[in-house]
């Protein structure tokens, strides 16, 4: 049974569709994300990458089809994806509070995080947990790091990250990538989006492209082009 669980997929979508008015953003998408991999989704801005990730996490309900995360049907058996950390769009926080205070507030909603775990998550993304400055004084890159810290602080098995390196300089991107690779080595599963194919090529086991509502895997030669 354990072996079966190990091999089973973390995320599965079947016939997933979503429209906004007459605009079909996602068309009958079947997608499987196995355990312990990093998969990337690329596509131009506004193509529907965030919508797809929001549907996987349960924040948006699909018009048609189903999403199963860790064996639970999102929207039926559970309202939101279980054991999942998310970073979707630009992470927003309570600007008058410090980064740590923001994470403490979110942690008290989930009720699963110890104070030590919060401090560790902040350190892991390269921020200082003792920094008492309000988030309003943070740079875009620092906010992005804080967003990543909130996604990992509950030690989730699945990470859904929407353009997590936005606003980071090259060094910052490298740090985040090596951290994500470390997480994969620990058996975590990661789904990441970017509008840059090159960025994903460095990191991902497989790359998909979202275009005209369809999600297609890119072959090795394509991904290098």
């Amino acid at each position, binding site marked *: 049974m354990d072996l079966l669980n190990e091999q089973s997929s973390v995320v599965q979508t079947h016939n997933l569709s979503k429209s906004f008015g007459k605009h079909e953003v996602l068309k009958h998408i079947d997608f499987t994300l196995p355990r312990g991999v990093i998969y990337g989704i690329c596509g131009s801005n506004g193509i529907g990458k965030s919508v797809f990730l*929001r549907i996987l996490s349960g924040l948006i*309900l699909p018009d048609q089809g189903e999403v199963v995360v860790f064996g639970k049907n999102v929207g039926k058996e559970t309202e939101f994806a279980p054991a999942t950390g998310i970073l979707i769009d630009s992470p927003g*926080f309570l600007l008058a509070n410090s980064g740590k205070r923001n994470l403490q507030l979110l942690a008290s909603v989930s009720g699963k995080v110890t104070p030590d775990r919060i401090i560790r998550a902040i350190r892991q993304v390269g921020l200082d947990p003792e920094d008492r400055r309000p988030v309003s004084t943070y740079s875009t890159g620092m906010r992005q790091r804080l967003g990543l810290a909130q996604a990992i602080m509950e030690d989730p098995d699945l990470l859904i990250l929407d353009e997590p390196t936005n606003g980071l300089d090259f060094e910052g991107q490298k740090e985040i990538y090596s951290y994500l690779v470390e997480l994969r080595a620990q058996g975590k599963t990661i789904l990441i989006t970017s509008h840059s194919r090159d960025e994903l090529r460095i990191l991902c086991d497989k790359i998909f492209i979202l275009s005209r509502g369809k999600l297609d895997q890119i072959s090795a030669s394509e991904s290098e082009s």
Partner: protein
Amino acid sequence: MRFKAFLRIQLHQLIVRWRWLLPLPVMGFLSYLLSNAIIIRNPPAFLSQSGATNMVNSWDALFTGFGNAYYMVFVIANLFLLLVCDSLPESAIGQLAVFRLGSRKSWWAGKSLSMLIAAFIYTLAGMVLLLGLTSLRLGFSWEWSKFGWSGDTILVPALFLQSSSPLATALVLFGMDVLGFWALGMLMQVVTLLTRRYLLGYLTALFVLIGSMGISGSLVNVADGLKLFPAIRNLVMTFYPYPFREVAMGWSYVYWGICLTALYLLGYILSRRQNYYSKEQ
């Protein structure tokens, strides 16, 4: 505990904002207008006549301000609606909180409860500000003023003047207004749930208020239940536009209770299909 933490984030986003300083100048200006109006009706020479004390006091201003349908609709209720009009669309941190809370039903309960708390704080702050500021010019007393006793001029039904203290009467009005603002806020949220546009929510609530003033004028010789129908009659103590009230104040509480129950249930049903979009979508 988890819900309490979620509520804290909701309240922080709803109330800890610069716009919540707006009641200060607005109530300040209203206090100035009301004090002037009361003093003009009671010239200083008359007030000082034969050493009469407590000819007017700040309760007169409070009941005249919160009892005047025009002030109520266009200033007091409208300001509350403006303060909370964008409370429903979930911010980025709000979405992260909902995701951790794990339930859209609890999310709706949180939205409703935070609206009640906002209505409570707003009404309390508004009344205390008006009472405090007008007391600087009109003075303060725990008793009704002689001006108040003069009849319907302070927009309080005569029964209250005979049987209640100003504080007890203010508490009755406070309860009505908290429930009323809560219900109007909920109406705004339900319309936003339906349309995804909070401006429509705000305009609907404002339309209901202004429309109720129009309807009020024609509702005299009708059944008691119908007399209570216009929302404005349940926000002020008299039966606008008439200076009297024919139905007990308790029925206004029942009225808002029914509205709140209906709006909560409607929102509860709608929230089950609620999507949390990014701000651009």
